[in-house]
């Protein structure tokens, strides 16, 4: 019954859509982080949030606990999430190196200082 959601909030199992909603929140926070943080490292943190939002989706879609039908992503979900974690680590390494390189050249970590190339 959806009439009184609070009454059943804790007594009913959650579904994939709950996970997707959490993922959406993380994704949005991450994107906004990227768009508002002036500290390049803050932007990197935003990227991590974005990737985690997507990862949560993969896990949810592949979970047989949340959803047990034919169209479930199954183990593919977990495998993909795992590779995403690895790729995210690689990406973080490169982005950090690039940020440090930027820092060395500009003596600042403020992405708003990256404004020489425009037009």
């Amino acid at each position, binding site marked *: 019954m959806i009439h009184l959601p*609070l009454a059943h909030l804790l007594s009913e199992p959650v579904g994939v859509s709950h996970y997707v909603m959490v993922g959406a929140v993380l994704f949005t926070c991450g994107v906004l982080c990227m*768009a508002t943080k002036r500290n390049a490292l803050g932007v990197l943190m935003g990227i991590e949030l974005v990737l985690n939002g997507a990862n949560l989706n993969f896990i949810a879609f592949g979970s047989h606990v949340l959803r047990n039908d034919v169209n479930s992503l199954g183990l593919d979900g977990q495998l993909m999430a795992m590779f995403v974690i690895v790729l995210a680590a690689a990406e973080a390494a490169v982005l950090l190196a690039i940020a440090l390189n930027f820092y060395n050249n500009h003596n600042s970590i403020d992405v708003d200082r990256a404004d020489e190339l425009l037009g």
Partner: protein
Amino acid sequence: MDIATASKLSTLLMWAWLLPLASFVVILFLGKSMGRHSKFGGYVATGVILCSAALSFYALFGVWLPNNPLADASHSSEEVHAEHSEVTSVHPVAFLADHGEGESKGHEGAADHGEGGHGEDGHHANNKPPQSYYGDWYTLGQFGSLKLTIGYYIDALTVMMFCMVTLIATCVHFYALGYMHDELHDFTDSEVTLSDGTNLKRPGRYYRFFQYLSLFCFSMLGVVIAGNVAMVFVFWELVGICSYFLIGFYIERHSASTAANKAFIVNRVGDFGMLIGMMALWSSLGTFAFGDLTDTEGHVVEQGIFSQLRSAENDYHLQATDSVVAEQNRVIRPSADGATIEDPEHNTAGQWLLFIAGVGIFCGCIGKSAQFPLHVWLPDAMEGPTPVSALVHSATMVAAGVYLTGRFYPAFTPEALLVIAYIGCATLLIAATIAITATDIKRVLAYSTISQLGYMMLALGLGGWVAGMFHLITHAFFKGLLFMCSGSVIHGVHTNDMTEMGGLRKKMPITAYTMLVGCLAIIGAGIPIIGPGFSGYYSKDAIIEQAWSYGNSNPHLAILKWAPIVGAFITAFYMFRLWYMTFAGKPRNQHRYDHAHESPRVMTVPLIVLSIFAIGIGWKLPITNLNTTALLEQARPVGTLATTQGVLLPELVIPNEHDSHAPAIKWAAGWAAFSTAASGVLLASIIYLWNLLDPKELKQTFRPLHSWLWNKWWFDELYGLIFVAPTMMISKTASWFDRRVIDSILHGSVTVCKGCSKVVYAVFDKTLVDGMANGIAGVTWDLGLWLRKIQTGNLRQYIMFIVIGTVVLFIAISFVQQTI
């Protein structure tokens, strides 16, 4: 028809309606002679409207409810109806049998119409006409088949409107007794400067104010009780004239007289459309009457508009009658091969005419209810005294338009409803955005009124009749409250400008907290899904639910689904911006703050009374099952409970309103409404309460947007350019033509001949041929240079554009996919 009840109700309401007229007449003749400094006029008018209110409430509780008990609020039985929608004709016998189970006990004998309740008792697709009492008091005249009468059409909506109008008018009257005390002695109008540099001094006009107020109430009640479109039109115009008087109450002020003129003229534009609609109606149906006229035995003598268009034989579905089809074939498509009703599959016969009639009538409502594009008059109507604004914005005038739309509802085709919905949607969004930047406290409220009226129209257009009328009722209370609070503030600090207020919470607590109640009511504050909440919570959620239900059945009209949600956000933002700027924070103008004071009791008591209603009008009364929606359900127009499909636009589906209470929709819509409203309040708090974001910085960032909104989308300028300037031009040209052209025509012709050759050379060779090439190159070059500016070099903006690009592309492709 139950004769006894009918005569009782009609008598009661007639007195409630006529008493203000009496008051008007009394003050007209006696007001001046009782002396300019006496409060006689005020007391008469207030007393009279109090009597009217008493009569109206007696009519509701003493006569209507005992005769028409309320149904249970649950609509669960409605869902089964859809299955029976195949049934297209109902046998009279079955109809009679159904009737026996009906809840309205008073009129067992009537077989043709007047069924009470709202469809629970019927087991076919569509609901029957609501319980109503129709009759004529006086026949003005009969011209051929055109009969003009003064009559009544009373159903639950009429009674409710009477109670609402008289109640609010009473509050306004009491309030005005205090507010207008300046007018008791000679009045120095500080805003009018005479040629010798002094301010205008004039005798007070206390009595005249109440005289107009009484007339205003009389006219409004006349619109509400009117039994036919012609009578509506008469009182409609009377309302317009009264508003002209009241808005222009400070007639010496240039702005006031201009505003009064503007209100009057803009309304005439709408009325022109209404006249067209009336002509279309009368020429095709031959009547203006809403209800069916019966003789003493209950036999129908003359059929009204509704029963003609939605006959029982056709299961109360809207269908053009033979006369309409004939008229359309004669007027609109004379060449059509006489398509007739017998061809239900591809039947567009008569629909165009009905569409025109509906949209025409609605044009009048556009003007009166200040809908886009005729909304420009309402903010200027702020020039009137605040009690007038309160009355105009809540119970009268603007309510008249929505009321008429609701009253005329059975005759609107789905396509006309779509027009209504679109107009409402545009109004709602445009007005709300303008309210964001306005700094005049009354102006913010004025735009909020327009926006809320847009909500009502949207709801009606989407098929949410109860939702729309419910919002009309609740809005009347909280908007009246808000306006009177703002009046109290203005009374206290003597300015309209919010940038000079701030921190007034401590100086005028009653005003502040009653206004907070109003703000919470207008944003629809309440605990999502389960309630309880302020009155606005119920009505706004009903509208949003209907919008979602509509959006689900019409995926291609998604904008109508999202507009109320977006509107809820903006509403919450600007209302709390207003409240914070006025009452919270530090005083911005210490001088005004020091002189501020709470208003006298005669003004604050009405505030408290209204705030009680603003909280509770949406609630269900304990023990009894009395609540506003149930009462409105009793008046649900005939044939609106089925999911209907457009005829001219077959993909258009108007969903059954009860479907919108389905848990899935209620849940999603409720949360969406709550979260948007909450985030609106949050944003307002961030900016204006906690000062985390600097409004000036924001203004700087969004400069073009701000000036666009600040100038009210440049509607006034636009209309000035399109309508006013050409008119002026034409008149000037005409006079110029008279004096000059005739004389110089000979000389001119010679000059023209010489000039032509030069022009041909200049235009074709120089400008056109050379200029085309150069011009296009120049334009593309400039465009290219301009496009470079998008590449700002700011990384964070680039990231922002990823998201914007995604969302915009998603929306764009949804649209393109539908069109291709």
